[in-house]
């Protein structure tokens, strides 16, 4: 009896779809980049050596430039507006982390104004954002 052997076909991936995949990936990456787009205020970050990660699940970034102007989401805000914004944010989610991103030359009175608002709102934790010193930039202070 003759056994009919079925010829096994090798697995086959059409390479013509590779360009489609690459194109989709490109679109995907562009979308992700847009989602992560942050409106940064041009500041010179203060530098420190003993930093820890200050990321929370939810955060509110408050920027202060060297002239003492406050920004949230890239938009300049008055201190009273920021107070309302912080209060709303905390009411919605009390675990929201408030991050202060201030220029290294910002006068302390501006930082203090923000800290006082947080104290008044009974918010217990604040994060001072800094960056690690660049090796060649770091000066012995």
């Amino acid at each position: 009896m003759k056994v009919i052997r079925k010829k096994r076909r090798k697995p086959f991936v059409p390479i013509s779809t590779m360009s489609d995949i690459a194109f989709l990936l490109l679109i995907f990456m562009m979308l992700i980049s847009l989602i992560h787009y942050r409106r940064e205020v041009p500041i010179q970050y203060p530098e420190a050596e003993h930093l820890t990660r200050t990321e929370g699940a939810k955060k509110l970034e408050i920027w202060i430039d060297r002239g003492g102007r406050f920004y949230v989401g890239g938009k300049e805000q008055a201190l009273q507006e920021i107070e309302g914004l912080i209060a709303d944010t905390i009411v919605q989610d009390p675990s929201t982390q408030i991050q202060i991103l201030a220029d290294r030359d910002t006068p302390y009175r501006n930082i203090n104004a923000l800290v006082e608002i947080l104290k008044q709102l009974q918010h217990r934790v604040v994060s001072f954002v800094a960056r690690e010193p660049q090796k060649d930039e770091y000066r012995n202070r």
Partner: protein
Amino acid sequence: MKVRTHRRTGLDIGESATLSDLAFLLIIFFIVIAVFTVHKGFLLGLPEPGSTRIIPREELLQAELTASGELRSRGTPISTEELIRMAESLRKDRPNMTFLLKIDPETPYQRLVDIVDIVRRLDIDNFSFSMMEEHPQPNE
């Protein structure tokens, strides 16, 4: 008439090195995105408004930061190294020491960050800072 069927050419799955390349690129992309937005800094606990705490004088280390960023202790200018020495020496005798920093309203933020950095380095638990009400008079 015999119709010749043309077999489509494709990529052997065993040789599809491009797939692993793509996966690798994706992993790198996600790592970069994840690292890019991470902030570093200092997490500070804030006291309740108007809350006070009585601290024995001998457990207290006081310093001031002037508008120019100069560090002073009881009106005398001191260097950062001197402050570190004072804090270390006090902590040896009084492990529950408190470091109280008064800051001039015009002091650049970097100076406060410098002091918080030292506090973290020395592992001082009780650290308090507040703004001076008025500018200190010279030679005061």
